[in-house]
């Protein structure tokens, strides 16, 4: 690894800028609120599996 000695060269600075921007793109979505349809999907899946593993009446809903 030569990252230490290349720390000050333009090539690695350019690389750092690319990585900085890549993180920014990634983080923008990361920070967004999760859409309801995804949390609802997990809830539905959870209810379904509870309905399967337990006999007796369940609150399983057909959608």
């Amino acid at each position, binding site marked *: 690894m030569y990252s230490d000695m290349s720390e000050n060269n*333009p090539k690695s600075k350019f690389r750092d800028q*690319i990585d900085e*921007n*890549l993180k920014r793109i990634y*983080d923008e979505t990361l920070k967004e609120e999760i859409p309801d349809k*995804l949390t609802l999907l997990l809830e539905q899946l959870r209810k379904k599996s509870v309905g399967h593993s337990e006999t007796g009446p369940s609150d399983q809903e057909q959608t």
Partner: protein
Amino acid sequence: MNAPASNDPREQLVGHLPSLRAFAMSLARNRSAADDLVQDTIVKAWTNIDKFAVGTNLQAWLFTILRNTYYSSLRKVRREVADPEGIHAQGLFVKPDHDGRLAYGDFQRAFDKLSPEHREVLTLVGASGFSCEEAAGMMGVAIGTVKSRASRARKRLSDLMGLAEGEGAFSGVDQASMAVMGRSGMQAA
């Protein structure tokens, strides 16, 4: 939030939604397509949870499902599009700002024009903090392939931004004169 069985990996899926969305966006570059992709991933993960090896990296497992789902749907589209590497996307030449920083908007446009494979490798190793080894596992390729693909992706990104790597923003300019140039640039403007 109530977690009935905290050792059930299915209960941890909700915590991975943000990173799954971020990864999906880097591939699909479209919010509704990305959310559909996450939705398919969640259903597959839930129904195949017995195939997850407890104690291994759940996020990596989920990312693998997501990318495989994405590429298998992309394969259908690609039969019709004869330009998988995005060569038609050439012709974008953007100079850096006078202060030498890459403008974020220009960067995003260049990123959009990369092939999904290039966006994927840069996102995995450059943005989401996976090692090349982990990325190789998810992508189903050798570590050397991850490294060379990442390097080609960076090169392509700089080409798209009209910069030759190593002689872009900072060539022959040290930090001090950069600062001076930045100030005079502001005064001139």
